[in-house]
């Protein structure tokens, strides 16, 4: 019997002093600021003179910020926090002496991270619905899609965390995530790039995540969404497998 849920319960127990709304505010505060500043502020400039209003541009940026927020919260949770637990708290050194298995730790960590991202995603969705930036009923699927994104990045983040040795290594992680945030069609469409660059950008996991959410919130469905879903499922499963193997080696090796 799996006891992965014990990890989730443990994290909730540790967090019991932090109020739940703290987690939500922390999760959505930054994307919300970007939505106001870039979405609406720059949106006024983008559409000045053109047919649409600033609202149309904000509706373009909003799903991308949701995807980014899911990515950031998933990766920060599984890299920074897990790294700390493994290297300093030595939490799992004691866990492995109990009947819990490595797979329980892996699944439990990913589940706890996904839970946290889901909480933020639901609130962010509520905010963009309230601001009238949703144009399709398909947007109801945006929350499960955000959960899938959180799963893919949590698994990949957990796998990455096992490779981090120095505190400085976290900077290199940011060096991957920040360009992804800025260049994965968050703020402008893929067509801005020259052809060869488009191929590179399209291969990024955040691009696939944004495609998925943007398709759902604008109601423009296509085969691309299925491809994006498959991409994220593969990334999540592959990341889980790798993380599990690496954690096993670290804790039992």
């Amino acid at each position, binding site marked *: 019997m799996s006891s992965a849920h014990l990890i989730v319960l443990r994290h909730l127990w540790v967090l019991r002093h932090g109020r739940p709304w703290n987690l939500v505010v*922390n999760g959505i*505060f*930054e994307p919300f*600021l*970007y939505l*106001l*500043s*870039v979405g609406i*502020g*720059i949106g*006024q*400039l*983008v559409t*000045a*003179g053109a047919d649409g209003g600033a609202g149309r541009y904000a509706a373009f940026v909003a799903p991308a910020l949701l995807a980014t927020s899911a990515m950031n919260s998933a990766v920060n949770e599984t890299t920074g926090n897990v790294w700390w637990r493994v290297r300093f708290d030595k939490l799992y050194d004691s866990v492995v002496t109990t009947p819990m298995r490595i797979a329980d730790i892996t699944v439990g960590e990913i589940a706890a991270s996904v839970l946290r991202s889901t909480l933020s995603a639901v609130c962010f969705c509520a905010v963009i619905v309230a601001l009238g930036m949703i144009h399709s009923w398909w947007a109801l699927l945006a929350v499960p899609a955000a959960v899938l994104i959180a799963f893919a990045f949590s698994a990949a983040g957990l796998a990455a965390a096992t490779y981090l040795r120095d505190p*400085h290594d976290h*900077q*290199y992680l*940011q*060096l991957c995530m*920040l*360009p992804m945030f*800025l*260049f994965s069609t968050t*703020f*402008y469409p893929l067509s*801005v790039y020259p052809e060869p660059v488009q191929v590179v950008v399209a291969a990024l996991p955040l691009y696939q995540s944004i495609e998925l959410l943007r398709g759902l919130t604008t109601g423009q469905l296509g085969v691309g969404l299925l491809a994006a879903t498959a991409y994220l499922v593969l990334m999540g499963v592959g990341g889980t497998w790798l993380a599990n193997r690496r954690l096993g080696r670290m804790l039992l090796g």
Partner: protein
Amino acid sequence: MALRAYGYWALRYRRTWRGTIVIGVANPLLFLMAIGLGLGRLISPDLAVLGGVDYLAFFAPGMLAAAAMQNGIVEAAFPVSMSRQPGGAYPVAAGTPLEPEDILHGHALFMALRVATNAAVFLAVMVAFGAAQSPMVALTLPAATLTGLAFALPAAAWAVTLTGVGPVMGAFKWVVMPLYLFSGTFFAVEQLPDALRPIVYVTPLWHGVDLCRTLSLGTATWPASLGHLAYLVTLAGAGYLVARRNYRRNLHG
């Protein structure tokens, strides 16, 4: 004696500079490319609200000032709050013939040089991209450094009173990010509703942004520039005086 305290930070930096490249140099340059070049392509180049220049020329000097603010706080708040903990560099230095003022002066000199070197790299790239419109752009280097110090000195004055780095993270989220996104860096303050504009005009970052922007565009006027300078110098000076008092209280308390 202050140079001895400076020597400590310079020596330390010779070992750790690689990690600071990401946050100090890569971060603003990536924003310059993604927002200035990429998103700028969606914005028509003759908008009156941007002063009739293309978006890159509008955004780049704003980003220079905003990056100087971030660097100023990163260089002041985190190291100062960590150095003053038991066993940190400050209590140890305070046990030597160094006076608290020397420790402050040495560290502040290091902060100023860090902000200035990062700004110089950014400025060189900005000029290479053709984002500068006037030879007066050279004056943005001291202007950006002053902007950085106007944040770094008050931040140091505050951080030296802290017992942990937790509040610094909070300040980043609740103070620095909103300033960054709403101080006229990404869009013109004139786009905001009338009621909100005065709030932006009292924020220190707006003064740094407007000073750098008018210098870079060649539209600077004496009264406005002197006003911005006076504001920033006052803030830096007040921060310095409070820091002096707080350093003495906390290090020789």
